[in-house]
């Protein structure tokens, strides 16, 4: 695919797959009305067929008018029949590229390419659907163009860092919040039934919705992390996962804004933790059928501490070693968090720990700090404490150096400002987090 090429169309089966998802949803909804049978007449069936045809026709029109190509350093996508829109996505601002394959697309050998953009043109570009091999080629070429090099003919093999065994995944889901919800509900139902047996039916029907919610969360987590493989390649970090809908995500080197490790209470006895990586980009609310479109990507949904440490060493090689605790008077202000609070830094990276039940550790490379804030609330002023916030472009990791001594915090603010400036001026080239 030569950059000065002609326009490309998406795969002809794309409208069918897009419509297919709508149909499955509609079929589930209409299944209820079809079953009783007495009200479904010929006209009802014809209406549904007409609606189906109209949906497919719309899809075909949309497919016909959509085209894309790479122009220089931009990806350009034109779409729309009545209101034409021409979108331009500058490739150097790519934050991550996903190759998403919902189950319908997998059946036909297709894949969707999603680019997550950062900077002022935050948003996402979607090319749905291309053949799977074409999608891989396009992905490699876009990443190479983003870095400003020629696409390589044969890539160096990727180095697998972590593979998630299914048994551990199931174990972690069992010990997660959906199970807790279900247990609490079961307890509530049991006690309510014991008190008044006649109310059982009412209680059961109202808790049905909660049960469905818990099952959805369970399924989504299972699908999102099944067979997860994290590999390091020349163009960044590659994360592949999925049971029915598979996702292959590439986070280019230098786009990691922050890293977070979460150790929930239920996993502490087993020594498990979760490592998440934050990427810049606008928050996007996907539909129910979309795989999770968070900016926070769990590169290790559940793993032991050693695995997390080794993965962290590949992503952020200069993590600081030592941390200091806050002064003991911080116990008055944050009694539940106090035992988890700490922070540390070196010239390239800052780490903070916080959390009430779960312990949350956040690493922020100093090159990625957008702004710093020193905040002192009234309780903190009485206790001569202050908090420093390190703002990053990611949405989910909030690195906060909480409840330090006020004068120490002021000094550290000055020092961190100087360090951030030096880090921005001289970025290192090691590790996935540093460009």
């Amino acid at each position: 695919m030569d950059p000065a090429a002609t326009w490309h169309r998406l795969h002809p089966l794309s409208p069918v797959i897009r419509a297919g998802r709508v149909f499955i949803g509609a079929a589930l909804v209409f299944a209820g009305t079809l079953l009783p049978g007495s009200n479904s007449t010929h006209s009802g069936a014809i209406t549904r067929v007409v609606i189906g045809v109209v949906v497919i026709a719309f899809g075909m029109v949309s497919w016909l008018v959509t085209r894309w190509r790479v122009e220089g350093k931009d990806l350009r996508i034109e779409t729309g029949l009545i209101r034409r829109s021409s979108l331009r996505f500058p490739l150097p601002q790519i934050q991550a590229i996903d190759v998403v394959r919902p189950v319908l697309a997998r059946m036909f050998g297709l894949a969707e390419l999603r680019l997550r953009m950062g900077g002022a043109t935050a948003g996402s570009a979607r090319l749905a659907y291309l053949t799977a091999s074409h999608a891989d080629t396009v992905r490699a070429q876009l990443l190479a163009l983003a870095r400003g090099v020629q696409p390589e003919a044969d890539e160096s093999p990727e180095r697998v860092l972590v593979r998630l065994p299914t048994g551990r995944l199931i174990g972690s889901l069992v010990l997660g919040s959906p199970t807790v919800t279900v247990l609490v509900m079961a307890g509530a139902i049991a006690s309510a039934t014991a008190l008044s047996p006649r109310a059982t039916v009412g209680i059961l029907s109202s808790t049905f919705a909660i049960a469905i919610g818990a099952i959805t969360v369970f399924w989504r987590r299972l699908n999102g992390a099944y067979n997860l493989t994290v590999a390091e390649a020349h163009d960044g970090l590659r994360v592949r996962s999925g049971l029915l809908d598979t996702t292959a995500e590439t986070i280019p080197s230098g786009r990691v804004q922050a890293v977070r490790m979460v150790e929930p209470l239920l996993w502490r006895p087993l020594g498990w933790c979760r490592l998440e990586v934050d990427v810049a980009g606008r928050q996007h609310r996907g539909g129910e059928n979309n795989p999770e479109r968070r900016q926070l990507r769990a590169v290790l949904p559940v793993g032991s501490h050693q695995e997390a440490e080794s993965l962290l060493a590949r992503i952020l090689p200069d993590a600081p070693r030592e941390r200091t605790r806050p002064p003991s008077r911080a116990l008055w202000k944050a009694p539940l968090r106090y035992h988890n609070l700490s922070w540390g830094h070196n010239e390239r990276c800052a780490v903070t720990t916080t959390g009430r039940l779960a312990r949350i550790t956040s690493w922020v490379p100093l090159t990625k700090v957008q702004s710093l804030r020193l905040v002192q609330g009234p309780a903190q002023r009485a206790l001569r404490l202050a908090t420093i916030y390190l703002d990053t472009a990611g949405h989910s990791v909030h690195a906060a150096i909480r409840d330090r001594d006020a004068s120490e915090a002021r000094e550290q603010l000055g020092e961190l400002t100087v360090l951030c400036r030096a880090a921005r001026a001289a970025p290192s080239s090691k590790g996935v987090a540093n460009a």
Partner: protein
Amino acid sequence: MRDTGTTSAEQEEVWLRPSPRLGIMRRVEVFGVTGLAVAIVLMVNAVGLLAGAPVNLGTAVLLIVGIALAGFLIDRWAQRRVSAWAYCEREDDLLVRRGVLVSRLSVIPYGRMQFIDVVAGPIERAFSLATVRMHTAAASSDARIPGLAQTEAARLRDHLAQLGEARAAGL
């Protein structure tokens, strides 16, 4: 947090304040709302008296006194807030200090500013003031400076935009 706030020992920092018209504007706002509330109470009671409904003058007076007192207290707090707002243009970054109960100090490097907004609502425009808002790639950067004279707001915006472009660091 209330001292001159020298965060770097070497430089002497010059803290600039919003225009004094901001204090007047806040006072007008607070007393405007208070006056409106008192007027409503008076009108309700007057209408009640005229219509012959039983009106408890005692509670009306108490209500008016309460509203006036609240107005005075809020005005005091608003004035303190205005005087606590300050900003300092250093060599590589901008410092913004604000807040009375929760005092905040933001440090925004020029190279990190994505864009700068100058906004003026109708009341601000009546006093020839404007608010300058700095945006970075982080959603939680919240630095803004209200009540700047319009010439000062324009100067600050142009200065920041020029410095931001010169030192832009990649995302």
